[in-house]
């Protein structure tokens, strides 16, 4: 009886959603070229190249034009990692007391020692060049966390100091908010998160004002946070059931 009611509800919801979207059409220009959406899109595309001199439009929207939402997203990620750490609370922290019981085979241990510097280098490249090619702080930070996950799964007694991770994460968050507050002092209009450094030439590494600085801070913060999450979850010693 419950399943019949659920399927009926899903059919009604699905019918109304899909009817709206089939009306809009896919790839049609009459939806994007009406008088509300077209000015916003054209203004963003034009100002990105001519005023900010940044090549990647999505980066300039995320960091500069809608930068306050990114500050909110970084706060939500920080809150969720804190909640996870405090729910899985343990009294004592033994080294080597982990879910993974045995060390991996010798191919995995030898290979991961070679791959780890390459993965960290790739992640650093992605978040430094966030304003020139696809990429940015979030993508690069997650790639670095994946590198740490590889080392944690291959070796039995590899450990990362939780204190160092907390220090890096807090300093990066303070840098983001601090650069925003400097916009009050040095900016022309005196608003929060304003771009006060000079923008250089298009496709240069030092172009775009404060955008590379903010994205590097976000990259460090996300990498430290996600490594902390993986380390907390791996140290859960549940009961042994195969």
């Amino acid at each position, binding site marked *: 009886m419950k399943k019949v009611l659920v399927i009926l509800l899903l059919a009604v919801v699905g019918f109304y959603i899909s009817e709206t979207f089939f009306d809009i059409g896919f790839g049609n220009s009459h939806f994007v070229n009406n008088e509300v959406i077209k000015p916003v899109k054209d203004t963003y595309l034009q100002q990105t190249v001519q005023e900010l001199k940044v090549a*990647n439009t*999505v*980066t300039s929207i995320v960091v500069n034009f809608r930068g306050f939402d990114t500050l909110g997203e970084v706060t939500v990620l920080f809150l969720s990692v804190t909640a996870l750490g405090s729910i899985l609370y343990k009294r004592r922290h033994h080294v080597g007391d982990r*879910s993974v019981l045995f060390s991996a085979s010798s191919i995995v241990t030898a290979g991961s020692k070679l791959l780890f510097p390459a993965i960290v280098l790739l992640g650093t490249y*992605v978040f430094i060049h966030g304003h020139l090619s*696809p*990429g*940015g702080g*979030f*993508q690069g930070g*997650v*790639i670095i*966390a*994946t590198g740490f*996950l590889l080392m944690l799964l291959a070796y039995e007694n590899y450990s990362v100091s939780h204190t160092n991770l907390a220090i890096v994460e807090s300093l990066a968050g303070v840098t983001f908010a601090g650069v925003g507050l400097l916009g009050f002092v040095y900016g022309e209009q005196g608003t929060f998160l304003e771009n006060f450094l000079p923008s250089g030439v298009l496709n240069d590494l030092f172009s775009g004002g404060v955008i590379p600085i903010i994205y590097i801070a976000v990259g460090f913060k996300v990498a430290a946070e*996600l490594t902390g*999450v*993986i380390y907390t*979850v*791996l140290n*859960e010693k*549940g009961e042994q*059931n*195969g």
Partner: protein
Amino acid sequence: MIAFILISVLLVLMIAAAIYAVVQKDLLYAVIATGIISLVLSILFYLLQAPDVALTEATIGVALTTIIFVITIRNTERMEVEADKEENIKSTKK
């Protein structure tokens, strides 16, 4: 013509993986099917001309979500137990 066939195959694969993830009782296989959904989604984002979103979905959806689910399964149970309600309730009222 090639793009037409490629997109059709990817969409059918995505729906098949979603149905498999919901129906299967062995939870480890369901988690891997969710990883396949994220992989197909990342290729579709690239074909819709959105490379930033494709990078983000490929790393977060495939690597991190799968590893967190697998560690949770290792600490709890592996098979989804839905069989006899009476037996399950009686077994804990010892």
